[in-house]
Every structure is written in structure tokens, then in C-alpha cells.
């Protein structure tokens, strides 16, 4: 599985799905379902919610694949963005979020950071490894603000309120985290290398 296929690959997949090819959607699910589910589980913290988000994301892909533009970004970026928004919407709607900062609950696997566990790493492509490595090298405080923004959907002022840090400190850490990420990643992943 290559989490970062070429734009042509993504365009072909999207075109096939848009034409009503159920097998193409099944292949997309097989390739990216574990990423979508893992992200949904990481955000929602509950298996039931994560499964609903998983369904929602791939149903949306099925219904709107004709609108996917590979020139604007990869299918993975599209799916992760959609998953994150749906998952955050869901936890906000349900008011059932456990300690968001930990991203853990009774029925969720313990995921303590943005980076996958070593065993998961074996399944990742080189591009995904680069992303994981860049995230893992961030200072703890900077990775923390990025986690709170990405997984919990918190704004910088909300992060400051939750952590008790001054807003200026939170802003500085967020911007530093993004700068370090971009410096560590190739252009194909949104970086500057």
C-alpha cells in the first residue's frame, strides 16, 4: 500500500468511483480504510463513533468523487481532511469526548502521540515515514499544541485555556511546529525540501 500515490493514480481511482465502480471504492477502502479508521478512532476515542465516521467518509467519497481534483492534493490528504472534520464534528455533537488531550478511552487503542507505533511503521511508505519522522522530532511542547489543534480541533486561544500557557506562547509553539515540519518535509508533503 502506498499512502501517497501519484496524482494520476488518485485521479483514476476517483474517476472510477465517480463512474459508479463499486470495486474501485472497495479498493480505495482497502488501501485507506485503516488510515481513516485509525484517524477517526484517534479523534473520537470511541469505536462506535470511529466506525460511523469511517462509513460517512467513504459514502461521501462515493457520492462526490466526481468533484475530487487530484491537482489540488492527494486522495490521502482529501480523506484525512474529511475524516478529521467529520470526527471532530461528531465528538462535538455527542458531547462524549473523553480526555481529549490523551485521545484515549476504554475502547480505543492507546495512541499517545501523532506518530504510529513501531509495528505500524512497517506498513508505511517512505513518504509516510518522512511525515512520521518529522512529527516525532518536534519538541514535546510543540507537538502537543499541534495535537490539540489537529485532533481536538482547538483554536490557539482554546489550547491556551486548556494548557494554562499564555496565548503568545501557544502561538509561538504552533508556528515553530509548522515551520519545523515544513523544513523537514519534501514539497510533495507540503514541505520546503
Amino acid at each position, binding site marked *: 500500500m502506498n499512502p501517497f500515490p501519484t496524482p494520476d493514480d488518485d485521479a483514476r481511482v476517483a474517476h472510477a468511483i465517480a463512474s459508479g465502480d463499486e470495486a474501485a471504492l472497495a479498493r480505495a477502502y482497502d488501501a485507506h480504510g485503516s488510515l481513516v479508521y485509525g484517524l477517526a478512532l484517534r479523534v473520537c476515542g470511541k469505536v462506535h463513533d470511529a466506525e460511523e465516521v469511517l462509513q460517512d467518509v467513504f459514502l461521501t467519497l462515493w457520492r462526490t468523487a466526481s468533484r475530487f481534483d487530484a491537482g489540488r492534493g492527494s486522495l490521502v490528504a482529501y480523506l484525512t481532511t474529511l475524516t478529521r472534520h467529520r470526527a471532530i464534528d461528531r465528538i462535538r455533537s455527542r458531547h462524549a469526548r473523553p480526555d481529549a488531550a490523551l485521545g484515549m478511552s476504554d475502547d480505543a487503542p492507546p495512541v499517545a502521540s501523532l506518530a504510529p507505533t513501531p509495528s505500524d511503521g512497517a506498513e508505511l511508505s517512505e513518504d509516510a515515514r518522512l511525515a512520521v519522522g518529522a512529527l516525532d522530532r518536534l519538541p514535546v511542547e510543540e507537538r502537543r499544541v499541534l495535537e490539540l489543534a489537529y485532533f481536538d480541533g482547538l483554536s*490557539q486561544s482554546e489550547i491556551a485555556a486548556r494548557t494554562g500557557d499564555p496565548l503568545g506562547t501557544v502561538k509561538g509553539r504552533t508556528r515553530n511546529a509548522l515551520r519545523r515540519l515544513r523544513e523537514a518535509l519534501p514539497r510533495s508533503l507540503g514541505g520546503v525540501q
Partner: protein
Amino acid sequence: MSRDSVIELFTLSLLGALDGEEAAAVRARLDARRPEDLDAITAAETLVGSIGAGVARVSAPPAARERLLARIAHDAPEVRSRAGSASALPPRPAAPSRPARRTRWIVPALLGAAFFALALFNALRDTGSTMDTAEQQLSRLLLDPSNPRWIANDAKDPAAKPIATVVGDAKQRRFILAVDKLAAPPKGKAYVLWTISKEPGAQPKNVASIPLASEAKVILEVTDTAALADLAAVAISLESDVRTTTPTDVIAVAKAP
């Protein structure tokens, strides 16, 4: 402002990390998609996507895959039947020839679609909308992450599978109700859609009836109403009198986050 600064701002916006006026201003610039910004927008979107791609992969239960494939198999005939009607839906490419397992869906799907179309026509007539507009607008609204989405849970069993999704329009005073599947109402009763304003002491407002002859999905665009951001809740009730001003049997509620 340097390109790097623009990418940083766009990334912060896509993360939802900005606050107040700055958030609104950057969001507006993102939405404008000016030609000179497209490169930076793509870089920011890719960077945010890379963050998400770094999470641990977790295999979903096998039943989830089967459920998804069953749902899209059910979805396709519904879309095809609407595309073949007199609506202005953009033509969806014909579905490829189906294996034998699909054929068993055709008759019930066509019957269901006929009932669905009738119910939807009636429902949309109540709200002054059109069939194709509801479908198309739902797709558009869902693609814009800035639009709020609420989940309507079963009023009697909030832990049960959600009944519907309410998708608001951040730019207009309207929302779309997408009911996953609504059972046919008992004889002599009908579904009614309600909104409850955030105003202190506000009473539920009867917005529209949702007449159904059979179990069906419903996509209902509600216009000329309060923006979703101004509402405390949207509800569906079962009523003997569709003009009632007080809900009596609430079956689903979507509350503001």
C-alpha cells in the same frame, strides 16, 4: 507577506487554530481561491494531510467493509432513478453492469425510489425548494468543512445509531436535513421538522412536515429559517396534526455543539 507566511496562515486556518477576526479573514481568503494563492493553499492542504497520514493505521472490523459496500449498492439505484427523472441533476454515469446479487435490489429499489420521490416532492414543496437543489446543495455543503454538521440522535435512545445529519450553510440562513432512513409513520400520523432558537425562552418552531408513505431516506433543504449557528436544536417529531405548534412525540434531536 512572504509565501511561507501565507502558507503558515493557511495551514493554521485549515487546522482551525486561528481565532476571531483573523480566522474569518484567512478563511475568506482561502475560500476566494485567488490564482496567486492556489499554490500556497495546495501546500497548506498537503501539509495538514501529511499530519493526518502519520497516525497509526487501525484495521476496522470486517463488518464495516461489508456494511459500506451494502450501503453503496443501495445508494446507486436511488441516484440512477433520480437522474432519470425530469430533475436537473447532473447526469451520473451509468453504473456498470451488476452481478446477480444486485438484481434482487431492483424491484424494491424502484418501488422505494418512487415513494421516496413522492415524499421528497411533498417535503420540498413545503419548504419551497426543489429536488435537485437539495441533493446538489447537500453535496456542496458537505464538501466545505466550515459548514457546521450536527448529528440527530434517537431521542429515546441517544446511544443508538444516529437518525439524521443536519448540515448548515455558514454563508446563508439555511440547512439541510439528511435522514439516513425514516420508518413509515403510523397511520394517521406524519413527521414534523422543528427548530429551536437559542433565544432565551424560545419555543419550538414547526418548520415543515415530512410526509412519508414508506420507509425512505430524506434529503430536505430548509431555507428562510434561522442560520444553524443561531439554533439550539433541530428535532423531528411524530404528530397527528402536522400544523401543531407543540411537539408531542419527539423521535430525533440534533443539538448545537
